[in-house]
């Protein structure tokens, strides 16, 4: 009896000790005080050398963590376990976080480098006046294709090309409801933010006609499959297409003329921030022309930094496929936050589409 009590007490003491140590560790690993900031970003989305350079210049140490979906990022910020100081969500997520009061307004006087940003990318509908966010990278959704694997000439200037009977079992789609539903809506000339039931029904019906051509609906594996010429056509993001092209030079990328998605990832300061001043310094640092140019070189996505663009290789920045001119951009649409019901509706339709494949 005594032994059991002794053992129980020992267990409780050890647990309490571990809890204490854990809470101490938690304090130090999340940012605390003025010498650390915690940056929360997508994977492979920032040149690590720049973090060292930032620490050298400002004396602020950077704790760097990554996420793989906007939703996962938001959940962690909501829980508030770690004190993230800067994060890089996409535009529709910023709208949502704003609604849920998870963002701290930016002090523009502390971000003089904001002037480097192309005015085209400022003051967008998801964040008027850039009260909460500063653009980080941008890109489009389009079609990556490998002409060597196609028997006929397609240039994919129209979404309609994907429906060609010659392309049976050739098209890979990205496993994401907004992109696939958006493609269906765009191909019919509707807005990819449509909430109109008859338009959505038409888009679903149109997508059902695509099923014989669909080879698979997968995630990041798309890149590897295209690189190895395993697949000929993929609906994908511009940056992912560029990743494919680095390895497989036959691959080309096109944004269809009927319209498509224009997206932005942006730097924000979440409510969890401990070091708001350090966060502003970091954002300002990332907007520096040279830093932005180096980062864009490393990441491969399109930078909204006009001053940085001038420092980059004109062959890259002149590529219309990745830096489309304003006329093309005018045809592109930014995702709006559709609200929980409509997000559910889009996903249910997407699920139905996937079920219709077999």
């Amino acid at each position: 009896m005594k032994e059991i009590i002794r053992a129980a007490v020992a267990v409780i003491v050890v647990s309490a000790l571990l809890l204490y140590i854990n809470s101490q560790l938690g304090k130090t690993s999340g940012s605390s005080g003025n010498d650390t900031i915690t940056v929360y970003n997508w994977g492979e989305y920032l040149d690590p050398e720049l973090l060292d350079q930032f620490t050298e210049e400002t004396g602020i140490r950077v704790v760097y963590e990554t996420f793989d979906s906007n939703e996962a990022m938001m959940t962690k910020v909501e829980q508030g376990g770690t004190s993230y100081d800067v994060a890089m969500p996409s535009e529709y997520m910023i709208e949502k976080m704003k609604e849920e009061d998870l963002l701290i307004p930016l002090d523009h006087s502390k971000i003089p480098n904001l002037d480097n940003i192309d005015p085209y990318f400022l003051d967008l509908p998801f964040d008027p006046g850039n009260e909460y966010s500063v653009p980080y990278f941008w890109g489009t959704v389009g079609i990556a294709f490998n002409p060597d694997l196609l028997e006929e000439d397609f240039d994919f200037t129209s979404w309609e090309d994907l429906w060609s009977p010659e392309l049976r079992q050739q098209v890979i789609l990205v496993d994401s409801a907004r992109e696939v539903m958006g493609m269906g809506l765009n191909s019919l000339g509707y807005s990819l933010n449509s909430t109109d039931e008859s338009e959505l029904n038409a888009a679903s019906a149109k997508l059902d006609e695509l099923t014989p051509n669909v080879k698979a609906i997968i995630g990041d594996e798309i890149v590897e499959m295209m690189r190895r010429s395993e697949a000929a056509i993929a609906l994908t993001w511009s940056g992912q297409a560029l990743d494919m092209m680095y390895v497989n030079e036959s691959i080309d990328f096109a944004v269809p003329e009927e319209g498509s998605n224009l997206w932005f990832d942006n730097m924000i300061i979440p409510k969890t921030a401990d070091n708001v001043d350090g966060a502003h310094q970091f954002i300002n640092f990332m907007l520096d022309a040279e830093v932005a140019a180096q980062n864009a070189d490393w990441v491969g996505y399109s930078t909204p930094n006009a001053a940085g663009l001038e420092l980059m290789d004109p062959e890259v920045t002149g590529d219309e496929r990745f830096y489309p001119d304003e006329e093309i951009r005018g045809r592109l649409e930014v995702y709006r936050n559709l609200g929980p019901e409509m997000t559910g509706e889009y996903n249910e339709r997407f699920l139905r589409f996937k079920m219709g494949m077999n």
Partner: protein
Amino acid sequence: MQNKSTRALYLIPYGAWIALFVVAPIALVVYYSLFDIHGDFTFANYKAFFSSIYLELTLSSFWYAFLITLFSLLIAYPTAYFLTKTRHKQLWLLLIIIPSWINLLLKTYAFIGIFGQYGPINAFFAAIGIGSTQLLFTDFSFIFVSVYIFIPFMILPIFNAIDRLNPALIDASRDLGASPWTTFRRVILPLTMNGVKSGIQVTFIPALSLFMITRLIAGNKVITLGTAIEQQFLVTQNWGMGSTIAVFLILFMFIIMLFTGQKEKGGASIGKTK
């Protein structure tokens, strides 16, 4: 008296474990399933489950889980049977079990290469003149990979059941004039049924909610309840609906357990499978 209270004390960790990690999570899932996206109390999720695609999804999940279990069983039973007849049966068994130590995802990724357009199987097909075929992203590849993954779990309980079978019973059956087929059907099979049931349990239930393989190998052309739950939680963030699907999955599993449950029979040492 002393003895009794000590025993009660020993039960505390077990009880706490069950309460924390079995009862509480199930209760939470049921609790969440009663709320809609706005956090209002409702039974609408259950209505939605019955009136929409989820029912269809359930049927197709069951169909694929059934196929996977069937093929696993067809391969596992004879394998287990012949394993018990080999000389170094523990070694052979080990060789079959070892692949299950490798991470599931790694094995799945390996199959992407094997079934690929430029993979070894298509190279073989091309060499014998069939020409390259689309293997990846088909029903065939999905069932093949799933069966491959579940086979060790199916073999193990069946192997144990057959191994524990008293050989005297088989001899007796033969001496009394039964043909090998009758011996198998009337003696071996009934006495190893518990092993088969355990094997079906450990295969069918996880097969119902497979979701990584559906994407990587079947290219989302096969959709299971697992995919739907993942989407509800991560993309739609409709925890209520996700939980509702999970509640039904738990129910289905419970029913399967009931059907394949092992009845205690007095004195039988054959049914021990663990």
